[in-house]
């Protein structure tokens, strides 16, 4: 069992499982929180995640295949997706590639939202670019089901913030490309509403000057 990612919420281990290379996602107990709260958070997230990963596939968004779920131990065994994190790729490709990648990401987010799926942690660490050009969305641990405007806005607000904090060099044009891709999936009208919602969320944040 090789630890490949020590996340804040869960750790990912690379394993051999029935001759397959798999990822075991373990939600280890957090020593900082009391057992009651800890168990509640871990088991809820472990049950919830495979459900929503399946729903994402129905929406036409690539996600890892789930092989096993163990709620008592709070772990999930799933496909190991070969590829690179978008976080590592985005600042190291040509402008054209970057924009088309962002548009693709936007289209996929649009598909999720069309199907009432809110990812909940849309950072570029949670998107894997495969060698055949697909973006596989991983880590649905904080996802929720909703068709409301508010969570869609919060979802994309995080995407925007990730671009501005981690990929700040080209944040503006990258975000624009994401939203263009998003509009392709959800339609211009809905995209406009969500964009307005994102602005509203930004202003709601504390101490935001009315920019533009």
């Amino acid at each position, binding site marked *: 069992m090789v630890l490949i990612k020590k*996340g*804040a919420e869960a750790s990912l281990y690379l394993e051999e499982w029935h001759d397959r290379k798999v990822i075991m996602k373990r939600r280890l107990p*957090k020593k*900082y929180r009391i057992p009651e*709260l800890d168990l509640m958070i871990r088991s809820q997230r472990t049950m919830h995640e495979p459900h929503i990963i399946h729903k994402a596939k129905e929406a036409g968004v690539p996600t890892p295949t789930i092989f096993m779920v163990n709620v008592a131990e709070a772990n999930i065994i799933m496909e190991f997706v070969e590829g690179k994190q978008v976080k590592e790729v985005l600042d190291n490709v040509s402008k054209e590639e970057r924009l088309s990648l962002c548009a693709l990401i936007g289209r996929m987010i649009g598909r999720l939202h069309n199907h009432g799926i809110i990812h909940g942690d849309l950072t570029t660490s949670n998107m894997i670019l495969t060698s055949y050009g697909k973006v596989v969305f991983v880590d649905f641990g904080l996802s929720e089901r909703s068709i409301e405007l508010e969570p869609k806005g919060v979802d994309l607000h995080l995407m925007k913030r990730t671009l501005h904090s981690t990929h700040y060099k080209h944040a503006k044009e990258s975000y624009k490309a994401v939203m263009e891709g998003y509009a392709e999936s959800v339609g211009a009208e809905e995209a406009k509403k969500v964009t307005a919602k994102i602005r509203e969320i930004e202003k709601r*944040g504390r*101490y935001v000057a009315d920019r533009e």
Partner: protein
Amino acid sequence: MPTNNSADSYCLGIESTADDFGVAVVSFEGKVLSNANDAYMPKEGGIHPREAARHHAEVSEKVLTEAFDKAGIKPRDICLVAFSQGPGLGPCLRTGATAARALASYLDVPLVGVNHCVGHIEIGKLATGATDPVTLYVSGGNTIVSAFEAGRYRIFGETLDIAMGNCLDVFARAVGLQQRKGAPFGAVVEELARKGKQFVSLPYTVKGMDLSFSGLLTASVQAFQSGKYSLEDVCFSLQEVAFSMLTEVTERALAHTQKPEVLLTGGVAANKKLQSMLAVIAEEHDARFCVVPLRLAADNGAMIAWAGILAYQSGISTPVEKSFVNVKWRLEEVYAPWVEGK
């Protein structure tokens, strides 16, 4: 004119963002010579901005005098005046800014406007020796997880509605607790929470990297009002849930940035329970855990003076005609050339 980086160059810092009026004298090499303060205590309810501003104006002379006396220097020894320019309550900020402008003009020294959030981070770094931390800044008005990247303190997560300290304050008032001088509501809740045993299920709201406390506040008040749970148990559960949320988001930022330190700063940093939870994640990620000392945790003039010195030494000052306050000045809008990335 000031000579840079010298022990006999002094900055006067004025803090008046919210309920505290603070004045401090700090030397250019980072020694806090005095840190005087007078807090506005509302008879009931929260801070009334105009009343707080009136309080600040009334105590300004007393607090200024105290700052000079304790530092053992004369006004003429000051070579820089720093003031909190925002974010905060407009009337309160303007009172401090007016005093700062008057002093700078009278003494004929440069003026520098400081971002309040930067002040909390920089004083935490100065006091603990942290150089490049993930910072959890929690107070009555702010809840921000940030880290320095490319010239600025970037915000990784923050509250989507009310601040952590605000949540504790409003809860405490709603359940009929009283604050005392030297024991703010947060301390009163912490005291009661230590006696709590039974965990009451309350909403845990983390959205990506952001947090929401308003639902938790409402549910906590309702849990107490239902009569089913003791106040101690509700305080205990409120703290457990809220601080677990803060710790989860801070850990996320730490895992993402892989910074070498975790810094806890702001008024709520005084909470021992929160300190102990953050210490756990810092250790797990091989980061050093730093917590701002109690005397510099809440709003104070020293943090403004120190952040002012850092800005001034990297060539930043604020001409009087540009010294208007900015009540919505976001942390990440501040260019911070004095910080080195590594």
